[in-house]
């Protein structure tokens, strides 16, 4: 009898502990699986990559410690790295054109005529195509003989140009392909934003004689700030992540002219000439630090908003 009573008490005590601390304990129980997964697959690998970048490693055997040697080689005499880095800068600046282009299309489509909703979704849908398909579509569009682009250029008496075969043009050709879905994305962000613009403010500004550019710049754009912020975040991240298009359209060529850091890293780590994981990791770390500048800014803005909301 006595023993049964004790075990019963014990169980009750445990239950009581949970009961008493329920509100404090529950969030942690709910967080465990997600945080564990995320830590193992996303957070830890960042530090592991930094660690690997100080080694020479073929991915299978022992790692050899080489200190800063990978970085020294990367930053002092690596032509491919230099080309990739400058291409990344081109991507960053030109990709941002998606934001004004998206705003322009959004303004064009922000009307209420028959069938406009269908037009909005049809303008948007390049965004749901995979970058691989976008890459293929544009590489066929650019074909010197079979491509539609050169057919159109011929009509106005220009061309033919072999965009992807020309080292001076290829990167711009790929960025143009990337701008297609990215502009669609920015467009939908702005359409949503325009939908929520305060009509009373617009009317009041109209009564004061504001129109056209002034209206857009002083009345509308300030109200679109949240949309612009998201467009900026996704476009910057997208520009620095560019990999699929390059891989599909030119595979880094011609003569390595379209490489970017993300592609060059992949090439070094898993190349057909052997795996150079240490060197690849060093490239990834450099790319990570470029991104970190932007990430810090994004997080800082979001943190500020959070603090205000509290």
């Amino acid at each position: 009898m006595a023993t049964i009573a004790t075990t019963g008490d014990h169980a009750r005590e445990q239950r009581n502990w949970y009961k008493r601390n329920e509100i404090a304990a529950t969030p942690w129980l709910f967080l465990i699986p997600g945080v564990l997964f995320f830590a193992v697959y996303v957070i830890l690998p960042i530090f592991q990559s930094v660690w690997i970048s100080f080694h020479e490693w073929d991915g299978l055997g022992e790692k050899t410690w080489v200190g800063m040697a990978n970085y020294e080689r990367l930053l002092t005499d690596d032509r491919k790295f230099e080309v990739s880095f400058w291409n990344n800068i081109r991507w960053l600046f030109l990709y941002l054109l998606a934001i004004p282009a998206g705003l322009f299309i959004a303004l064009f489509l922000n009307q209420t005529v028959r069938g406009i909703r269908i037009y909005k979704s049809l303008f948007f849908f390049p965004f749901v195509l995979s970058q691989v398909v976008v890459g293929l579509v544009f590489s066929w569009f650019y074909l010197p003989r079979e491509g539609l682009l050169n057919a159109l250029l011929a009509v106005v008496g220009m061309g033919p140009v072999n965009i992807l075969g020309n080292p001076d043009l290829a990167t711009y050709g790929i960025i143009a392909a990337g701008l297609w879905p990215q502009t669609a994305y920015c467009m939908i962000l702005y359409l949503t934003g325009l939908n929520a613009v305060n009509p009373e403010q617009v009317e009041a500004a109209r009564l004061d004689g504001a129109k056209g550019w002034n209206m857009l710049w002083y009345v509308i754009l300030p109200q679109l700030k949240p949309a612009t912020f998201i467009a900026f975040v996704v476009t910057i991240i997208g520009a620095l992540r560019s990999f699929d298009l390059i891989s599909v359209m030119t595979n880094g060529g011609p003569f390595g002219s379209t490489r970017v850091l993300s592609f060059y890293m992949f090439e070094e780590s898993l190349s057909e000439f052997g795996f150079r994981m240490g060197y690849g990791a060093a490239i990834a770390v450099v790319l990570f630090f470029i991104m970190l500048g932007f990430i810090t800014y994004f997080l800082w803005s979001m943190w500020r908003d959070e603090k205000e909301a509290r």
Partner: protein
Amino acid sequence: MFPRPIQQSGPAARLGYQAFLPLALALWHLPLIAVADFSVKPDADFTNGNYWGLPSSFEFVHNYGQVFFNSDMPRYMLNSFLITVPTVIGAIALSAMTGFALGIYKFNGNLLIFFMFIAGNFVPFQILMVPVRDLTVNMNLYDTKTGLVLFHIAFQTGFCTLFMRNFIRQLPFELIEAARVEGVAEWRIFWFVVLPLMRPALAALAVLIFTFIWNDYFWAVVLTQGPDSQPVTAGITAFNSQFRAAYHLMSAGSIVAALPPVLMFFLMQKHFIAGLTLGAVK
């Protein structure tokens, strides 16, 4: 409304606008129209130099039949589904829980964990590549769908947590307080009070994650290699080398590969756009 409604500028302007719309759309989709045209042409059109004109005969059935019955395409498509669907379920399950924990409770480190999820979501894939590949190889999951799914679930949990947490924050907190006063256990509050209210968020995330994962290419080439486990984005390159320079078949293949997310988008448009534009309006 800005810009000023076109109706106010008279019927001529409105008609002009409506006539210009299809033109602008055709211009916007020019490369895609060319590919759709390619995909229904007979082989002969390419040898005769009829590249961008109308097809000399309509070969829809033949070309798409080749894709479905004479290539590995159906297998790649199936792989894509077997990778995408479990990822959607896993990421949503994990992030419903993390979102609930971060959205409802106040505790030390709440914002820190939340920002860890957001920050992880922004990192370049390449910084994860070598360790994740290594981990997958060590778990004997290299070149399996499971290996790919596990990584995708983990990575997407970052974005999904951001989404869920912000959505839960907008729910009326009084509901939870009322349930607590009634003595309802916390996990029951999650299951019976919060989860039913999150249906729109779950739907939005499901379509978004479906599209993101279906379209993934980088991780597919890093973690898998053959038709046994590669999804269609990676498989399309093998398909294209099988039909080298047969543009009509390659075009048909790409259109087939792109179709599921396009259908998903048109069927679930409201949820898709709600998910994508979260935070675009304050």
